[in-house]
């Protein structure tokens, strides 16, 4: 579904991704871990097409298309969804109006007619119950006055509504207490399916107790320095990142 080859990117002339290689297939759950500043969130920004990130080398193929040629909205329409670490507030724009606009933009792109009002409401109710999202928040202005936890849960609700092929969760666990974390994780687990893939970016192993990954990748200094299964996450939890950093530096000096 997604193939990243030798991806290099920079922001304001500073190199932040230095040759990422990654293959994600349908149905897979990939966790991206790594110390602060290793490039985890930058990777998600580059994939989603944030303006101030410049790709200097490499390629990204998504469902047979060159992703880097597409505008951010077309990447979204092709099926890439980014759950933001810091979801923005948009006053006066109701959550549902926003979602309806988004859904219809995606449908139009795929040559489908706009969704019927009745069908939209049905879908809304179904997904809201599926991911246990507070119905009162649906008619409020988009994220305005939401608590940190409510914003993150809204991201998962949107994910459920827009039904992408690849969902990237950028530190969705940060700032959540354990109860909120469980609800968010349960929502994500319900959305897992054989034709959907996930890339979960997290700093802590904690989230992976609830969302069990098929692969764990450790990002350090703009590169994936180690790939393993869920056991790797536990090992990192126990030993921290320093041993990996040393391993990297030893390899480089050889």
């Amino acid at each position, binding site marked *: 579904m997604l193939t990243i080859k030798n991806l290099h990117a920079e922001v304001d002339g500073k190199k932040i991704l230095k040759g990422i290689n990654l293959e994600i297939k349908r149905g897979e759950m990939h966790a991206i871990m790594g110390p602060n500043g290793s490039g985890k969130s930058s990777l998600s920004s580059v994939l989603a097409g944030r303006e101030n990130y410049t790709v200097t080398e490499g390629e990204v193929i998504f469902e047979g298309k060159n992703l880097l040629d597409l505008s951010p909205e077309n990447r979204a329409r092709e099926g890439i969804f980014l759950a933001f670490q810091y979801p923005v507030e948009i006053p006066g724009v109701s959550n549902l109006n*926003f979602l309806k606009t988004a859904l219809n933009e995606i449908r139009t792109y795929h040559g489908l007619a706009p969704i019927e009002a009745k069908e939209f409401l049905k879908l809304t109710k179904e997904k809201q119950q599926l991911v246990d999202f507070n119905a009162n928040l649906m008619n409020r202005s988009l994220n305005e006055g939401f608590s940190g936890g409510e914003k993150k849960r809204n991201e998962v609700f949107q994910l459920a509504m827009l039904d992408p092929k690849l969902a990237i969760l950028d530190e969705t666990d940060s700032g959540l207490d354990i109860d909120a974390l469980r609800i968010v994780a349960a929502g994500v687990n319900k959305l897992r399916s054989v034709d959907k893939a996930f890339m979960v970016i997290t700093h802590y192993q904690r989230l992976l107790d609830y969302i069990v990954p098929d692969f764990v990748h450790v990002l350090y200094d703009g590169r994936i320095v180690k790939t393993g299964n869920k056991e790797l996450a536990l090992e990192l939890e126990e030993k921290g990142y320093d041993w990996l950093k040393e391993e990297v530096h030893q390899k480089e000096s050889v």
Partner: protein
Amino acid sequence: MRNSNEIIDDIANKEYEFGFTTDIEMDIAPVGLNEDTIRFISAKKQEPEWLLEWRLKGFAAFKKMKFPNWQHFQMPELDLQKLSYYAAPKEKKKLNSLDEVDPELLATFDKLGISLKEQKVLAGVAVDVVFDSVSVATTYRAKLEELGIIFCSFGEAVKHHPELVKKYLGTVVPHSDNIFAALNAAVFSDGSFVYIPKGVRSPMELSTYFRINAENTGQFERTLIIADESAYVSYLEGCTAPKRDENQLHAAVVELVALDHGEIKYSTVQNWYPGDKDGNGGIFNFVTKRGICKGNGSKISWTQVETGSAITWKYPSVILQGDNSEGEFYSVAVTRNKQIADTGTKIYHLGKNTRSRIISKGISAGHSDNTYRGLVQVGPRAANARNYTQCDSLLIGDRCGAHTFPYIESRNSTATVEHEATTSKIGEDQIFYLNQRGIETEKAVALIVNGYAKEVLNQLPMEFAVEAQKLLSITLEGSVG
């Protein structure tokens, strides 16, 4: 991929939709402004002597006045001698019904989305149409007459209801109020007149559509609306003009009078030609609008959506004379390219327990300048007067300006006056967030702007709220900073 600046330039170049002209035979006054001009207009309209006298008083006041210099923009040079003060489509004969209106005119208004055929017009909206200097048609008149509601052109009101016109004309905006009001008093051509009798609620929205067509003319309409005791009316005006390289002056006067428990809701969707992207041409929209809540418990509410004109310069105001009366001002002013808006309101609290609410939302894009200027004045008798003002500015791009000049004068210690102001920018983060959900940048901006202006748009009658939303989206198409 296109960057933000390219998209900004795109909106800057977005064409004005209503810029066409109508080729129709016109009756035009000779260029120039003097007593003869005024007599010419008065004679054309077959006016009574008292009205001519009033016009001449206005002209005398005008001659003594100078253009103001306190505004927050460079006052353009205006040569009032180069304008023609009267332009009307030539009438072949007296019109008895709409079917006899020049088809060219009907086509013009169809093109503007304003159908004059009653069966086709928006259900529940009566329309008076003013083309250059004269009113060409008023719909649903008979139906309104059954309720005693008078809705007609100003000229007809002078003929058929002189006592009402005489009683209220100039009582809210005197002939010597300011230089543009004085000019209007001298040369006003037509406009709408509304009278709602005691205890009657108008069953439909009343609406006037203004269209400037002729070249080198000014438009000086005058509107007078009276809500008698416990009467209610919701009134809406809309306007467009062709694209021309020269600036055109629009100096209208609107007077509202609400008697005991009377209520007037006045909405404006202003879309005069704004000029091109370099600031050539466009309408100078210098308008005096004022209402008086004369009676106990009366209410006047102004709602304006201002997207057009090269310069918009107006302060729809309310005098709260009656005890327990209420004034409101809701405004969205959008400026882009080199447009200028210096707008706001004045609320005078004179009576006891008077209340007012001001919500102003400025949106600036391109190289434009957007100013809110407002006065809240509380007189010594206005015990327990209350005002709340909220004044927000939204900036799109980094080459535009937003300014706020609030004036508060209170002479009663029991009064409460609140003022809140915010300035924000459409953030790249907001745009990117919406992009990431599949929404393209132009739609994203429209969504954000409409959300921002929602509190004001919600005040518009339903049929027009949708239009105004569309207009905001079109006006700001693609604008990101």
